[in-house]
């Protein structure tokens, strides 16, 4: 049997197979890119620092976040998700991570930026361990490709300390 439908089916099958191979190659071509992202975070101000009625410490910060993530973008990058987390150690938990701010970068043109902002999500501890607490601010990024595997990386900026007293 060699009919119109047979030929159309053969073409479609072969075409889709090739398309899958092209997608795999596009994904592999990302390995040719060596990203060198830059990120800096400063704490400009402690806006307030208090103990909530339920006993948990809460602090509000003003952050200055600047980053150049353009090198994460290749032709196969759909978007990049970034978030800034405060990370510290307490008696109960070896690692606490509190997400303070996040953003989605849709394209390379938006990948170099700086922003002056209060924390978007509240910085609340499980308990009252924040007084005098040393913490890191870490910028995490998750790169989402059009085809292929997602990957994530981070940059840790350390050496921050909260005040000893509530204010």
């Amino acid at each position, binding site marked *: 049997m060699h*009919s119109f439908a047979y030929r159309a089916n053969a*073409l479609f099958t*072969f*075409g889709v197979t090739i398309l899958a191979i092209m997608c795999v190659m*596009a994904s592999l071509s990302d390995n040719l890119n060596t990203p060198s992202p830059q990120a800096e975070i400063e704490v400009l101000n402690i806006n307030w620092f208090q103990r909530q009625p339920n006993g948990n410490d809460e602090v509000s910060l003003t952050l200055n976040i600047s980053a150049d993530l353009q090198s994460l973008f290749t*032709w196969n990058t759909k978007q990049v998700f970034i978030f800034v987390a405060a990370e510290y150690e307490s008696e109960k938990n070896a690692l606490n991570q509190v997400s303070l701010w996040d953003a989605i970068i849709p394209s390379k043109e938006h990948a170099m930026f700086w922003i002056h902002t209060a924390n978007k999500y509240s910085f609340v501890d499980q308990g009252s361990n924040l007084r005098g607490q040393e913490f890191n601010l870490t910028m995490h990024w998750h790169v989402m490709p059009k085809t292929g595997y997602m990957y994530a990386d981070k940059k840790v900026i350390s050496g921050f300390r909260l005040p000893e007293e509530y204010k």
Partner: protein
Amino acid sequence: MDWQGQKLSEMLMQIMLLVSAVVAFVAGYVMSSFKNMLIIYAASVGITLLTTVPDWPFFNRNPLQWLDPKEAEIHGVRVQKPKPQPQNTSKKPSKASKK
């Protein structure tokens, strides 16, 4: 479509798709645009479809040489006389006219 035409059609289809995939990938990579790669590839799949799927005249340059009924009888092939068809014409008389 005759035998040679079928071979030509299949070969054309495979070569055209492979070449267009290479062109689309290189163009997309050079232009850093995944979208352009898909557009180029989709366009070439469309062109390939129009070229190789319909039964164009150039796929029928080598028509099958059927033996004459008389000659066939000489070679010992029994030729059936076409039976007189009833009024019911739902069944097509012959399939040999196509392909």
